[in-house]
Structures are given as structure tokens and as C-alpha cells.
């Protein structure tokens, strides 16, 4: 290698030496600047803030469901309200919390990590955010739109997968289903826009020297996620269009009386629905890929295997959807195919899990709050994967489909893996975004409450499922033996609610009173930590030039740079 050639404007030139300046202006100017912004960092923050608001809303809906189910024959809410609660809870968590918060972090981090000034298409970025925001407002307007505030308005009540023909005009009169369909359509357009933007950013905006295989794993995984969004969210958009054609133009796609097919909807929905899980979980993996090495003080183990496994998951995830439909009835070939393809996912995910363990192995581990969440994530992800493999066996699935076992399984994925990693990401990047550290003591309270609440709630929830308790039921008989279990599940739910409130308090408190973070509080290695906290609008004073996967390590350890080993 051509060693010793000095680069006057390498990554060092990218470090901003100008002191941070606080912008001053009236509140109106501040609000205006947020509304018209096309800056990827501000849009990222908008996405995250918007998602956190809906996290609280959908969390409150979940707790109302749990209050209703805490004892048999409870009548905390009406059956009609209950249907609306679980529909809105699911729809909100997937489309208004999961996607936006992950896109928010992607927006904020991808350009910084690849040494770029902004996303490839800043205005498309703003459009994507605002149309997603509109989708959220539209969905929640359904509560007060239509018949008004009395009762529960006209919120959708068809469950988050909205099976046909229940959604047809004959069975869902009024506009509740229309709110759902149009909101999903709008949010889908926003998601596709962001996915296009992330792909263009990752492939076209990397700084000098950052080849694809020197890129941090986070942009790699976001590119994979974006590809899945392109091919998985588009079918959802298409079938919402079909549903609206049925409802508004008198079409017959899902109208079984005119020869249409309800099963077609199920296929189309799950062609979206299962890859969507990977759309949500791959960014969670991406956070783990960045956080675990930093707090283990080791470079990520098996970088090429991690890339291959992530891309592999992306492709395999497109061929597993019908494992949601074993009970609908398929040929034995179909059953065998989707059982096997689903099990196949466990190979690349297993590779990733072992690589994380190997990264931690022998490292000098720092048990900070983000790292604690990562460790909990590893265990919970493995358990979630194992119940997933159980459910992929079609015979087992026939027994347990649409039971609380399934609900417990996918909440293990969505909360145990994804939400835990979102919390880890919040603790890890909050100092970069705001310039202040989150309080570590409150963080530990948050972590332990969350961990205990999670396991009390969702470990227990498997059991009533095995005993035959179906999902989406309003109430149950007292003689089924489910009473104590449901009470425990509800208590666990409330402990998690308290944990989230601790996080909210911590975020607000630390924003004003938190310790100053400085540019690089974790002694990390990727380019975002080369900028001030929060980064200036232009990100890097000069375009950085990198020579390895860990440019900041190279800068801090000129005697032992990574680039010497490439």
C-alpha cells in the first residue's frame, strides 16, 4: 500500500472547529424554519418526534385494551370501541411509529455516516415526511370526523390487516375503512419516496474513499430496508387502490358475490405484511451493528458476513408471506414451501446473532444504557426467532393461528427486538442530536422497568395463547383458566407504560439540564461523531476523505490505523 502520503484535507478537515452558535429568533420564525426545512437532520428529528407522539398514543390504546382484558366480563370499553382500539393500535404502531422513527434515524444518520452534505433529494425528503404526517392526521381525524366525538367517532374497526370482504362497502358502510385505506395509501407514498431517497443517497453521495465495503453497516442495512420497501410497500399501495376502487367505483376485486376473491386480499396484504417485519427489524439490526462494537471496544466481527446476511434476509423475506395464511387453506406443496422458506430466514439471522456475540466476546464491555438495551435485544430476539420457527411449522400453526401465542410472538419481535433497539438508538444518538447526554441513572430505571414489564407481559402472554385464547376478542368466560394470566399480562403492560414515561421525562429533562455531550461522548468511530453535537447545517466543513471502515479510529490512533490492515 502507498503509505505515508499526507492528505491535507482528510477526515481531519471535516471536523468543524467553529464554536456552536445558537440561532436566535422569534418562536414564529423557529416554527417556520421547521416547516419549510429540507435539511435531513431537521426532517429526521421531525420524523422521530412525530413517531414518539404516536408511540404514546398507540401505547395508551394498548393499555386500554389491557384494562379491558384484565378480568373476565369487564366492560371498561364497549365491544365497538375495543375493535377500534386494536385496529388503531396496530395500524398506528406499524405505520405511524415504526416506519417513521426508523426513517427518522435513517434520515439523520445515513448522510452523516457516509460523509455527505444531505440526502440525495432534500425536497423529496420533505415531501415524504409531510405526506406521512398527513396520513397520521387523517387516520386520527377519523376519531372526530364522521359521527363526531360521541361514542368513538368513526375510527376504523377492521383490524390492521383489514381482511376482505369485511372492508367492502356492504359490510363496512360509512367512512371508517376509507380513512384507513387513504391513510395507508398516503403513508405508503411517503415510505416509497424515502426509500428511493435513501437508496440514491447511499449509492451516489458517499464521500471520497468510502467504497461500499468501507461503508458503516447502518447505511448498508438501510439500503436493504429501502429495497424491501420498494418491492413490499408498493403491493400495499396497489391493493389499497383496489380497495378504494371497490368502495368508491363499485369494483369487484374483493367482492366475493361477484366472483372476486377475499383470499387475493390476504395474499396481497401479506406480500406486504411479512417483508414489513424486516423493514422494521433491519434498522434495529443496524443500530445494534453500530452500538455493540463501540461499547465492546472492538470492530464488528465478520463485516462481509453481516452485509451478506442482511441482503440475504432482504431477499428471503419476500418469499415467506403465506405463513400468515396456513389456516386459510393451501395445497400441501404451498404449506411445505412456506414452512421451509420461513425456516430459511433463521440462517442469515443466526449468522447475525453469532456475529454480535463474537463482537462482544473478549471485548472490554461498557454497560451503558444503550449497551444494556442491546444485550436485552440479543436475548429477546433469539426467543422471538424461536417462537417464529415454531409458528412456521404449518401443523403447529393450524393449532395456534390467531391465538395470543401469535400475539406474544410478534410483540416479542416488535417490542423485544425493535422497540428495545429504538430505545438503545435514542440513548446512543440523543447526545449527537441535541448536544446533551440523557441521564444515565434515569436510563437504567427505564431499562430495568422496561425489561421487567416486557417479560411479565409477553412471556406470560404465550400461555393463554397455548390454552386457546384467540386474539382480538372483547372479553372471555371466567372458567377458561385465563383470568390470572391476563391480569399478569396487564400488569406487565402497565410497568412498560411507566418505563416509557421515565424515558419521556428523561428526554425532556436532559434537553434542558443534561450534561454537555461534546462531539464524541462514546469514543466512537463513525463519521457522525466527527461533527459538533448537534452538527452544523452543512454537516462537514470540508468533504471528508476516508481510508477505512472506522475513519475516526484512524484519526485517534494514527499509530495503528485500520487502513493499514485493508
Amino acid at each position, binding site marked *: 500500500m502507498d503509505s505515508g502520503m499526507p492528505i491535507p484535507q482528510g477526515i*481531519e478537515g471535516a471536523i468543524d472547529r467553529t464554536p456552536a452558535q445558537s440561532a436566535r429568533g422569534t418562536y414564529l420564525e423557529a416554527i417556520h424554519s421547521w416547516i419549510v426545512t429540507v435539511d435531513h437532520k431537521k426532517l429526521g428529528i421531525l420524523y422521530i418526534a412525530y413517531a414518539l407522539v404516536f408511540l404514546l398514543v398507540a401505547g395508551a390504546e394498548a393499555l386500554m385494551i389491557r384494562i379491558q382484558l384484565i378480568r373476565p366480563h369487564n366492560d371498561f370499553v364497549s365491544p365497538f370501541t375495543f375493535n377500534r382500539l386494536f385496529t388503531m393500535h396496530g395500524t398506528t404502531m406499524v405505520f405511524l411509529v415504526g416506519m417513521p422513527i426508523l426513517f427518522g434515524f435513517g434520515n439523520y444518520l445515513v448522510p452523516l455516516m457516509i460523509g455527505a452534505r444531505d440526502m440525495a433529494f432534500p425536497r423529496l425528503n420533505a415531501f415524504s415526511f409531510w405526506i406521512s404526517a398527513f396520513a397520521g392526521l387523517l387516520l386520527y381525524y377519523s376519531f372526530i370526523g364522521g359521527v363526531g366525538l360521541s361514542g368513538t367517532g368513526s375510527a376504523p374497526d377492521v383490524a390492521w390487516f383489514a381482511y376482505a370482504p369485511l372492508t367492502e362497502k356492504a359490510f363496512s358502510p360509512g367512512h371508517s375503512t376509507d380513512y384507513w385505506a387513504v391513510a395507508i395509501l398516503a403513508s405508503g407514498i411517503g415510505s*416509497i419516496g424515502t426509500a428511493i431517497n435513501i437508496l440514491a443517497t447511499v*449509492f451516489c453521495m458517499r464521500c*471520497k474513499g468510502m467504497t461500499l465495503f468501507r461503508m458503516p453497516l447502518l447505511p448498508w442495512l438501510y439500503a436493504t430496508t429501502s429495497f424491501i420497501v420498494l418491492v413490499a410497500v*408498493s403491493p400495499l399501495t396497489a391493493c389499497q387502490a*383496489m380497495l378504494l376502487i371497490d368502495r368508491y367505483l363499485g369494483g*369487484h376485486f374483493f367482492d366475493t358475490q361477484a366472483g372476486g*376473491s377475499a383470499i387475493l386480499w390476504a395474499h396481497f396484504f401479506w406480500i406486504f405484511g411479512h417483508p414489513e417485519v424486516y423493514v422494521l427489524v433491519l434498522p434495529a439490526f443496524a443500530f445494534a451493528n453500530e452500538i455493540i462494537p463501540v461499547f465492546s471496544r472492538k470492530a464488528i466481527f465478520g463485516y462481509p458476513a453481516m452485509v451478506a446476511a442482511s441482503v440475504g434476509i432482504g431477499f428471503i423475506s419476500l418469499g415467506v408471506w403465506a405463513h400468515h395464511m396456513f389456516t386459510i387453506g393451501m395445497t400441501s406443496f404451498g404449506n411445505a414451501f412456506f414452512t421451509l422458506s420461513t425456516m430459511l430466514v433463521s440462517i442469515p439471522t443466526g449468522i447475525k446473532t453469532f456475529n454480535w456475540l463474537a463482537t462482544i466476546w473478549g471485548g472490554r464491555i461498557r454497560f451503558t444504557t444503550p449497551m444494556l438495551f442491546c444485550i436485552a435485544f440479543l436475548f429477546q430476539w433469539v426467543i422471538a426467532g424461536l417462537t417464529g420457527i415454531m409458528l412456521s411449522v404449518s401443523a403447529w400453526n393450524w393449532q395456534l393461528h390467531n391465538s395470543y401465542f401469535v400475539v406474544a410472538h410478534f410483540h416479542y419481535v416488535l417490542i423485544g427486538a425493535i422497540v428495545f433497539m429504538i430505545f438503545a438508538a435514542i440513548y446512543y444518538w440523543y447526545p449527537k442530536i441535541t448536544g446533551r447526554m440523557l441521564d444515565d441513572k434515569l436510563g437504567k430505571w427505564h431499562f430495568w422497568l422496561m425489561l421487567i414489564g416486557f417479560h411479565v407481559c409477553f412471556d406470560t402472554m404465550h400461555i393463554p395463547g397455548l390454552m386457546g385464547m384467540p386474539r382480538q376478542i372483547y372479553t372471555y368466560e371466567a372458567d377458561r383458566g385465563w383470568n390470572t394470566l391476563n391480569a399478569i399480562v396487564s400488569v406487565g403492560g402497565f410497568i412498560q407504560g411507566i418505563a416509557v414515561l421515565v424515558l419521556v421525562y428523561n428526554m425532556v429533562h436532559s434537553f434542558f439540564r443534561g450534561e454537555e455531550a461534546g462531539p464524541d461522548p462514546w469514543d466512537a468511530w463513525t463519521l457522525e461523531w466527527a461533527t459538533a453535537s448537534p452538527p452544523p447545517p452543512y454537516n462537514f466543513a470540508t468533504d471528508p476523505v476516508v481510508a477505512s471502515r472506522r475513519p475516526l479510529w484512524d*484519526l485517534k490512533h494514527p499509530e495503528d490505523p485500520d487502513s493499514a490492515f485493508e
Partner: protein
Amino acid sequence: MATIPLEHAHNEAEWRLPTRGVVAMTSLIIAESTIFTIFVTAYLYNLGRDTHGPTPKEVLDIPWFYSICLISSSLFIWLAEHAIEHAKMAAFRLWWSVTILLGLIFLYGTAIEWHKLIFEDHLTISTNLFGTCYYSLVGLHASHVVVGLIMMLVTVAFAFTRHLHPEHAYRVKVLALYWHFVDAVWIVVFTVVYVVGR
């Protein structure tokens, strides 16, 4: 002050990345292809499942002429791309206008076909399952033709007011990529609706 050894230093000019327009348009085409796949799947799945007529065989005529117009427009837009790359603006305006004209002829073909179906055969989107699938799929494609035509008309307006220059060749290529996609999709839609479907 530490300096970072960097192997790329002596050949900095070689740092080339794909252009964002092409990557973004390719991504959009992937997403759009998936949407078309869903509508095509629905069309094929629902073939022959109608409870009552009219059936495709009774009412559909193969639109040979209009299909040839649309598909040949891919050739002319390619000539236009070639012309602007070589700074031949007069040729560009000619080929670009021919492309638009062919697109308009295709749309006219769809319009008279739909007029016949609606007023002579009494087939609308709500008549039966075939009507729903047919108008959705062909309409989805036609709406893409309309979007393409609008963008090309804007471009031709810039071209004739001398605001379009050879340095915009790259942007023209991105738009042309979209038009090639619209043409390619028609081959699929044509095969499904008029060959397999009848």
C-alpha cells in the same frame, strides 16, 4: 497533527459514483413494477371468474396499430437522447416531438376503445369482475402514459423556447428511462389482456 495515509490519494479523479437521477428512477421503476405485478396478478387470477358477461373474448379487439405506435416511441426517444448528447438540438426537438405524438396517438387509441366498451358493449368498471380488472390495469398504464406525456410536454416547451441545452442531456435520459419503462410495461399488459386474456 496526524495525517491519514490514503491509497486513493494519487487517483482522486477516479472517485466516481452513479448519478442520483438514474438510481432514483431505477428505484421508482422497481416500485412501479411491483404495483403493476399486483394488478396483473389480480387480472390473471380473476380471468373467467365472472358471474356474468361481457367477457373479454366478446368485447376486446387487439389494438395492433396503437401498440406499435407506443412501442416504437421507445426508438424515437432513444434517438432524441442520442441527439441531445451530441448537442444536435434540432434533431432532439424533432425526435422528442415524434415521441410525444406517438404517445398521444396511443392515448387516443385507449380513449376510443373505452368509448366503444362503455357505450356499445355497456362494460364499465362496476359491470363485472372483468370490467373492474380491465379498467384498473389498462387505466393504471394509461395514467402512467399521461404522466410521461406531461413531463415530455414540459421538456418540449423548454426545448422550443431554447431553455434546454446539451448539458441537460442527463436529465433527459432520466425521463427517457421512465418512458422506456412505460413502453415495456405495455408489452406485459398487452400480452396479459389481449393475448392470454382472450
